[in-house]
């Protein structure tokens, strides 16, 4: 027992662990310095942008910064009756600065989003302030309330108070078609305006089926690749990789040529008499187009991990299974298939995650019923310029991917993934 507690010394009398650390320190520093560039690259191009996205998605500081005195005064207000004189005084002095800096328009825009009707009453108040109609000697409250009847409505003041916190989760709620009601409770958007939930579900549905189709098509191809003699398998491999090397846009465009109503596929169907010439099915600008094009485009991501796993499975295992009395199906199902699960996991995870965030293809061939959540994100980034909402949805998508990954880890185990 004493040998366990006794410290082992080197021949020079230094404890072995100390000596080992000293000997390895140099290598450790070298190894760390080697990964520093990559680490920095990751931080700058990945961690920081995601952090920025997150801050942007919850950022609501604009009004907070515009109306500092108002919100200080509002802290004592219970939010039920009309606010007291101090709140009006604070609001007036904040507003004067905004008028001077010509920033009242922004305030109107932001508050109007919170509650309809702010636009006009802020414009009215602006004109009064500009013409110096407000007498600072008298009650500011009375004078502001006279500007417009809505200034006498407590709901509008409640709306202002709601914008006080510098951070908000409203964008996330909006992403699932919900919003904060006047009392701060969470409400559902009217049924006919719930577009995001449909998009989320459709994204999941399309990603799921694209993964399924890629799997069903990719598995035999990968098997063929792994078992054919070298000269044929190389050719087949090029056939798999060639589309991979072709521009995504070109491939999508070629699908548009193939799938349109006067396109090649429809022509072929008419030729073999499958459909009537005046009744050509629409295969583009809907889900069909999205399924077909995305499956084709994502297929290599399924084939390659499967191939790399299948390549390592010795053909003698199947032979052993058969020689031991298993029918070809039993040998496949009990021996070959379980051994390909790491590849299936990797391929499905890869295709599903890529499909969930796919953008160009659904944008071009998806039409109205084939667009995905990423197209909505792009729409908010480019058209409405609501970057914080786009960020919120982007992060929700990222969270979704992480959840998929987590479920996968629970079911299959990430250790079992084999990408190559």
């Amino acid at each position, binding site marked *: 027992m004493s040998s366990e507690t006794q410290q082992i010394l080197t021949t020079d009398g230094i404890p072995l662990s100390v000596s080992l650390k000293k000997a390895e320190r140099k290598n450790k520093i070298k190894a760390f310095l080697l990964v520093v560039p990559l680490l920095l690259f990751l931080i700058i191009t990945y961690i920081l942008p995601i952090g920025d996205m997150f801050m942007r998605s919850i950022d609501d500081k604009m009004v907070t910064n515009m109306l500092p005195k108002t919100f200080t005064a509002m802290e004592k207000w219970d939010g039920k009756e009309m606010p007291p004189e101090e709140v009006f005084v604070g609001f007036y002095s904040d507003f004067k600065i905004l008028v001077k800096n010509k920033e009242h328009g922004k305030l109107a825009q932001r508050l109007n989003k919170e509650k309809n009707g702010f636009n006009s009453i802020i414009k009215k108040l602006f004109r009064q302030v500009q013409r110096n109609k407000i007498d600072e000697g008298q009650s500011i409250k009375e004078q502001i309330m006279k500007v417009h009847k809505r200034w006498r409505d407590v709901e509008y003041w409640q709306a202002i108070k709601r914008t006080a916190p510098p951070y908000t989760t409203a964008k996330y709620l909006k992403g699932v078609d919900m919003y904060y009601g006047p009392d701060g409770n969470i409400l559902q958007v009217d049924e006919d305006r719930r577009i995001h939930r449909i998009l989320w579900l459709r994204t999941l549905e399309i990603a799921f089926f694209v993964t399924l189709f890629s799997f069903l098509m990719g598995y035999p191809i990968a098997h063929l690749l792994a078992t054919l003699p070298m000269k044929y398998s190389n050719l087949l491999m090029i056939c798999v990789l060639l589309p991979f090397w072709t521009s995504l846009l070109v491939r999508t465009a070629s699908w548009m040529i193939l799938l349109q109503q006067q396109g090649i596929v429809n022509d072929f169907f008419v030729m073999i008499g499958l459909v009537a010439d005046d009744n050509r099915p629409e295969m583009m600008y809907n889900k069909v187009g999205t399924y077909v094009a995305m499956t084709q485009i994502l297929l290599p991501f399924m084939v390659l991990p499967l191939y790399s796993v299948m390549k390592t499975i010795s053909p003698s295992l199947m032979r*052993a299974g058969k020689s031991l*009395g*298993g*029918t070809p199906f*039993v040998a496949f199902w*009990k021996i070959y298939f379980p051994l390909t699960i790491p590849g299936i996991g990797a391929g499905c995870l890869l295709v599903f995650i890529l499909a969930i965030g796919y953008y160009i293809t659904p944008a071009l061939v998806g039409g109205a019923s084939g667009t995905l959540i990423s197209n909505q994100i792009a729409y908010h980034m480019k058209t409405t310029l609501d970057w914080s909402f786009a960020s919120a949805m982007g992060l929700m998508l990222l969270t979704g991917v992480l959840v998929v990954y987590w479920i996968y880890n629970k079911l299959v185990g990430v250790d079992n993934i084999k990408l190559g």
Partner: protein
Amino acid sequence: MSKNQEFVKFDKVDKSYDGKVLVVKDLNLDIAEGEFITMLGPSGSGKTTCLMMLAGFETPTNGEIYLDANPISNIPPHKRGIGMVFQNYALFPHMTVYENLAFPLKVRKISKDDIDKKVDKALSMVSLSGFENRMPAQLSGGQQQRVAVARALVFDPTVVLMDEPLGALDKNLRESMQYEIKHIHENIGVTVVYVTHDQSEALTMSNRIAVFNDGKVQQLSSPDKLYEEPVNSFVAEFIGENNTFGGEIIDLSNGTCKVKLSHGEIFANPISVKSKGDRTTVSIRPERALINPENKMDNNHAGTIEEVIYHGDHTRVRLNLLGNSEFILKVPNSSKNLDIKLGNKINIGWNSQDARALDPK
């Protein structure tokens, strides 16, 4: 109990993969029930192809294979009931040892209790009891090998095929596994068809050996006959060591022949020479040639020692004898041949019976 002498029968089997080259040519081979037969040959000689045809993974291009008098060419591998041990064991890596052994029993719909009993028995036969729950990756090469053997035997097949099963093991382990497999064969009496390119493995294990070359069986006989009485120069060359002289028959009478070499003449035992004037290769095993023989031998020639290599239990001596500078002698180290020194001239003798005049190389 009379054993079926034609339990496995290859009848005029040809095999070609590409329609141009015959890998196996006109193979006729009978294997008796309970026999341990080895197919021995250099790589590419067609021996593994024969095994694969018997297992059902390749189909004969021509001819038929019979198992217990039934033609089996049209029976798929899983219905042949032939056990097989593969070169790299082919254990199922995702199954435990127990599951590996239970696989052939489960597909035969054997009850759970019987499976347990049979797996137990098979594992104890290869002395691996207690390893049921290990994964193949947790076993050493030798243990994996034994599991593979147990798996090939667990469902009581009538024939077990082994395709270079010991190729991946190190030398000591290989030797002990050779004995182990031999003992298992002796105990359960199953017919074993064994493929190897290692002649010592073939010699120690088999009842009979079929030497393959160029798609043909060159010689099929027991190990001792194969070594002592090779029927052609390929077998003589392939099995063990041998010294050769190329020459021409100048006399043939009374079971001996006289062969004229480039330097001198020797007497030999005519095996595959028919008449005077034939070219021949004479083969002599190193241990059959003696230094300064005490008894009278009909071949006696002087040679010069060109190389002496110490091998522990014996010394190998390379001589220049009758123009052949590759003549090897094996001298036991216990003998008193003290004049084995480089450059010495010594007298070498052998009986003409041991010098086999075979086909010319």
